[in-house]
């Protein structure tokens, strides 16, 4: 718990520093704001926190930037081509992550930023996904994403 609060203080302080600059006077406002934000965040999550593996995070960022680039190019291409190639439809994707916990929520939000997929509803055991092209290997792509997210998070002390 205490460790979690410490890292949250560091996180919010960094955020404030980026936002407000390095003028010392800004910390008169910044310090209380950072502290209260950290405590509120810690209380909200409780001790269900997840550790994030640094290496996994780095790998994930590279993968994410590349995939979101592909996603943008893909959808822009479809929009601009005179004959739009769309084969949209819903897919129910069975979740292996626990739907009530942070990684699954993270997963559902990232889906919308990747090529060809859009998360519609996060259910108990599955995610409803809307795919723009059902012929693309959507399932395999989602599995890869899920594997990468699972590799990034380590279950915290609450698990």
């Amino acid at each position, binding site marked *: 718990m205490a460790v979690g609060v410490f890292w949250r203080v560091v996180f919010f302080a960094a*955020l404030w520093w*980026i*936002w407000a*600059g*390095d003028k010392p006077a800004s910390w008169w406002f910044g310090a209380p704001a950072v502290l209260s934000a950290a405590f509120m965040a810690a209380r909200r999550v409780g001790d269900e926190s997840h550790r994030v593996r640094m290496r996994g995070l780095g790998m994930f960022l590279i993968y994410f*930037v590349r995939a*979101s*680039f592909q*996603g*943008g*190019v*893909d*959808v*822009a291409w*479809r*929009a*601009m081509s005179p*004959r*739009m*190639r*769309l*084969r*949209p*439809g*819903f897919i129910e994707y069975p979740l292996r992550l626990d739907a009530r916990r942070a990684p699954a929520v993270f997963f*559902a*939000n*990232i889906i*919308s*930023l990747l*090529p*060809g997929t*859009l*998360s*519609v*509803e996060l259910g108990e055991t599955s995610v*409803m996904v*809307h795919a*723009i092209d*059902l012929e693309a290997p959507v399932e395999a792509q989602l599995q890869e994403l899920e594997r990468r997210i699972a590799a990034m998070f380590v279950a915290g002390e609450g698990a």
Partner: protein
Amino acid sequence: MEGVREALAVGVMVLGALFFVAGSVGMLRFPDVYTRLHALTKADNLGMGLLVFGLSLQAPGWQLVLKLVLIWIFVMIAGAISCHLVAREAYRQGVKPEQGGDL
């Protein structure tokens, strides 16, 4: 050297703006709510990323670069969340998607 950087920055930013336009075109041309959301979220995300990258090349200090990246992250989070919420809302209200075939 300075000139090259300037040209690169402007080039990247024009590219980013083109993605914004593509996203808007998609939003006007695509047949239903879900496909329009595809266009909006992804194209805007990438356009914003390129714009931020181009601006970072011109920014006078690296603290500004951090701030720009923060903006991109915020836009991304807001985009992903609101995209998911709008899609879920449309789904729950029973908006039917277009199915299959070349449209």
